[in-house]
C-alpha cells in the first residue's frame, strides 16, 4: 500500500491514488497497464480493496429525526449575515432599543419645552412687571401706612401737648381771674370803710 512497504516497485505509491480514482486519465491508463504486469502492485491493490471493503461493513445510521427550517429568507448582505451571526448582535439590539426609547421620550418632551420657551419672553416679562408692580404697590402702601402712622403719632403728641397747654392756660386764667377778683374785692372794701383819725 505504501512505498516503504512495497519497495519492489517504484510505482507502488500510485496504487492508492489509482484505487481511489485520483489519477488523471492518462496516468490511470498507464497504471492499468502496469497493474497487469506488476504482481506486487496488483497484490497491493487487492489488499487495499479488501481493507476498504472490510471498513464498509459498518453501515450508515438513519437520522433520528428530520431537520427542517421554517424561518425567513437568509440575510441579504454578507456583512449583515456576519454581524447577525456574531455575539454582538444582542448588545447592539439592546442599544438600539434603548436609543429608540430615549429618542421617543425626547421627541415627546420637546413640545412641552418649545411651548415653555415660546411663552417665556412675554410671560416672564409680564410676570416680572406684575411682580414688580405688586412689590412697588406693597412697598408704597407700607410707606404710606408707616408715614401715616408716624404723622398720626406726631399729631397725637401735638394734640396732647395742645390739650395740656390749654388746660394749663385755663388753669392760669382761672387763677388770674381769682386773683383779680380778690384784688377787686379788697379794693372795694378799702373804699367803703371810714378812715379813723384823719377827719375827726
Amino acid at each position, binding site marked *: *500500500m*505504501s512505498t516503504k*512497504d512495497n519497495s519492489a516497485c517504484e510505482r507502488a505509491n500510485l496504487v*492508492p491514488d489509482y*484505487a*481511489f*480514482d*485520483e489519477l488523471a486519465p492518462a496516468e490511470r491508463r498507464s497504471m492499468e497497464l502496469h497493474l497487469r504486469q506488476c504482481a506486487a502492485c496488483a497484490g497491493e491493490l487487492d*489488499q*487495499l*480493496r*479488501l*481493507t*476498504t*471493503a*472490510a*471498513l*464498509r*461493513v*459498518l*453501515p*450508515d*445510521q*438513519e*437520522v*433520528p*429525526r*428530520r*431537520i*427542517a*427550517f*421554517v*424561518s*425567513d*429568507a*437568509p*440575510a*441579504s*448582505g*454578507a456583512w449583515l*449575515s456576519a454581524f*447577525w*451571526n456574531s455575539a454582538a448582535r444582542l448588545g447592539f439590539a439592546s442599544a438600539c432599543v434603548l436609543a429608540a426609547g430615549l429618542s421617543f421620550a425626547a421627541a415627546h418632551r420637546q413640545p412641552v419645552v418649545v411651548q415653555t420657551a415660546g411663552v417665556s419672553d412675554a410671560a416672564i416679562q409680564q410676570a416680572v412687571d406684575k411682580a414688580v408692580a405688586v412689590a412697588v404697590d406693597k412697598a408704597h402702601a407700607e410707606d404710606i401706612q408707616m408715614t401715616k402712622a408716624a404723622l398720626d403719632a406726631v399729631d397725637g403728641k401735638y394734640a396732647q401737648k395742645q390739650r395740656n397747654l390749654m388746660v394749663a392756660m385755663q388753669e392760669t386764667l382761672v387763677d388770674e381771674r381769682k386773683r383779680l377778683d380778690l384784688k377787686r374785692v379788697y379794693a372795694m372794701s378799702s373804699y367803703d370803710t371810714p378812715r379813723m383819725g384823719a377827719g375827726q
Partner: protein
Amino acid sequence: MIFRAVPGSARGAEDADLIARVRKGDVEGFNLLVSRWEKRVFNYLLRLTGNPDDAMDLSQDVFLKAYQNIRKLDDTARFGPWLYRIAHNEAYSGFRRKRPEVAAPEFETGTETKDSFFDRQVAPGIAIDLSLAVSGALDRLSPEQREAVVLKIYQGFKFDEMAEILDCPVSTVKSRLYTALELLKTELAPANTRGIR
C-alpha cells in the same frame, strides 16, 4: 471507481439549483437541500463524536449555519466540501466546549473503549467478529487518521475536497489516510480472511 461511495458531481447540478432557490429566499428549497445531505452529515458527525445525540445536535447547527451563510458560498459546485467544512468546525468546537483542554475528539488513540460507537455498530448479515474488528481498529486510529478514513471511505470525497474540509494540504490528507489504511490493513488482515473472503 468502486471506492467512490457517493459521486459528488451527480449531486452538484441539483444542489446548485436548490442553492439558487435558497438565495432567492426559498426556505423549502433549503429543506430539500437538507434532505439530500442530512444523513451523510449526521453519519460523518456520528463517526467523529461517537454519540448520536451530539451528532444530531451538531447536524442541526451545521445546517443552520449553512443556511445563514449560503450567500458566502462562491462556487455552488463545492457545496459538499463547504458544508463538511462547517461540520468539521462545529464538531471540533463541540469538543472544545466539552473539554476545553483538548482540541480534538476525546477518545484516545490506541485505547479500546468498551462503549465506543464503533463497538456498537454491527452490520446485519456480516460476521460479528469482522464488524467488531473494524470498530476496534477504527477506535485505535488517531482522530486525524480516523477523520481522513471517514471522509474518504465512508463519505467518498476527493483528496482536494478533503484538503478543503480539513484546511490542510493534499499531501497531509494523503499521509493521514495512507498511514491509517496501513494500520487498518494490519489490524483487519485476520478478520478479512474470515469475514470477507
